[in-house]
């Protein structure tokens, strides 16, 4: 953990069983194919790193602009990722306006039930990551616990929702900073995402409906298949959306998605979901029963299509076609009203 350097360290080291974030690779990990991809990606990473250092010119700030948006879509170099996330999400500004707030939360009075709920998930957050092991030094479990406890007391309406442990865990892996992770979590849950994590999970239910509508518009054959076999979208996508694709897609791909999530907002999640579905439409349509459909939706999140994160990110902006924020907002409004009417 000495440096923020990420993916770059593993060039030419395909014998490594642990990736640069500390995740152990599965036993059946295809090193040869990965190495092939990575040597190509490394060229892109290097080019982007040069472009970004010219853009930043050693400064610690950045103004939103079309150029920056384009740069972010092409990936933030890992060494700048924490900073850019902090700046574009507004987390940096909030942190500066509220000095000492985070530590006050940790020192304040505690809700015992909340602590218990958080503690229950500590050993179940990235047990496959060496930095989250109890024996690790420093052990990120304690950092994670603090961030979640502080957040639960900061946003009492949400408290703790399972899934937040993974999101906070990723933030910690990238920022390597407790307080920054807290403010980024606040940016995500408090501003960027709809209310996915509140006890009613209204935002999640709403976005499930919205995804259903979007699939109806853009990939009608798949919508029809789901309908015919009574597969609810919630089965497929609650994990996708709550975990913001953690543990669904490869780490590097998730981080690239989050780059855009912090800059462009939550509609990026629909772009990712729609791309996965549209790209694999033919395969999904081969399914003839409920379990097959479930399997297909697991299958489409694996393989080179999602590992090749750079091409994948290009795809999400072309494959689903136009997806304006106005369309999303309108759908969200209708779906929320429909859900509220159902009680």
């Amino acid at each position, binding site marked *: 953990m000495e440096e923020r350097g990420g993916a770059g360290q593993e060039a030419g080291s395909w014998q490594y069983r642990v990736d640069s974030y500390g995740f152990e690779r599965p036993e059946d990990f295809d090193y040869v194919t990965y190495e092939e991809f990575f040597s190509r990606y490394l060229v892109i990473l290097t080019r982007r790193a040069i472009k970004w250092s010219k853009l930043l010119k050693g400064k610690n700030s950045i103004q939103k602009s079309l150029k920056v948006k384009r740069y972010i879509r092409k990936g933030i170099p890992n060494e700048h990722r924490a900073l850019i996330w902090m700046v574009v999400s507004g987390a940096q500004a909030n942190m500066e306006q509220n000095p000492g707030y985070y530590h006050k939360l940790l020192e304040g009075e505690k809700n015992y039930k909340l602590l218990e709920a958080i503690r229950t998930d500590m050993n179940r957050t990235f047990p*496959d990551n060496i930095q989250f092991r109890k024996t690790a030094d420093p052990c990120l479990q304690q950092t994670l616990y603090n961030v979640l406890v502080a957040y639960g007391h900061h946003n009492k309406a949400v408290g703790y929702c399972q899934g937040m442990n993974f999101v906070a865990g990723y933030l910690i892996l990238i920022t390597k900073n407790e307080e920054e992770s807290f403010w980024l979590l606040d940016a995500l849950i408090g501003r960027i995402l709809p209310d996915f994590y509140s006890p009613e999970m209204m935002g999640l*239910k709403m976005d499930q409906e919205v995804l259903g509508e979007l699939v109806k518009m853009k990939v009608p054959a798949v919508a029809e298949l789901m309908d015919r076999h009574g597969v609810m979208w919630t089965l497929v996508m*609650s994990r996708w959306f709550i975990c913001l694709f953690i543990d669904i897609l490869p780490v590097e791909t998730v981080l690239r998605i989050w780059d855009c999530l912090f800059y462009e907002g939550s509609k990026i999640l629909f772009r990712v979901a729609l791309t996965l579905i549209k790209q694999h439409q033919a395969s999904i349509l081969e399914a003839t*029963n*409920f379990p097959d459909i479930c399997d297909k939706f697991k299958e489409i999140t694996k393989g080179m299509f999602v590992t090749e994160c750079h091409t994948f990110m290009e795809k999400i902006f072309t494959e689903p076609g136009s997806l304006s924020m106005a369309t999303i907002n309108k759908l969200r409004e209708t779906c929320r009203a429909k859900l509220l009417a159902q009680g």
Partner: protein
Amino acid sequence: MPGLVPDEACDYLFKIILLGDSDVGKTCVVHRFHSGHFRERHHNTIGVDFSVRSLLLDGKKVKIQVWDTAGQERFRTITQSYYRSAHGAILAYDLTRRSTFESIPHWIHEIEKYGAANLVIMLIGNKSDAVDKRQVLFEDACTLAEKHGLLAVLETSAKEAQNIEEVFTLMAKELIARNTLQLHGENPPNSIYLDSRPVIASQSPEKSPCLC
């Protein structure tokens, strides 16, 4: 008709939902049943997870779909939509944590409210490998099961593969029996109770499955 979903490759297809508080070992139970292995290291379940296994019971091919759910209370708002189509529910508690047992009546209430009327419910006390930390007496679980007319109580260990097969076999056999009765029209649907008293089984050999 419940339990008799046509499927080209099996005689019966049963949907079983697994419910219970967070960290009682639901995912490990399913994983043990599904793969025969115990996973020490795994993530907490988000939303609903799904797996299938086929069993051969008395010459009949039975396919069991298991719906594994997130334990945290707020996820019920998502998992409830699955209760309706389930034929059986397995309610799990951790026998080393009293509070997870005390939640069982809430889970029963949930499933009675949102599940089908003739749903078969079983209770399992998981982590029987850690009896030295036991906080729930087997007798208390039996009393609770009898009170609510559950099918059975079993103490299980996903870690040591105790009673896991038994849970699903017992559930499947009961569902087959109810179905057969319904097929022969001996009873109108929704009113079949072969025996409302619980079958009791713990993991120790002296307390093998029996009718009480």
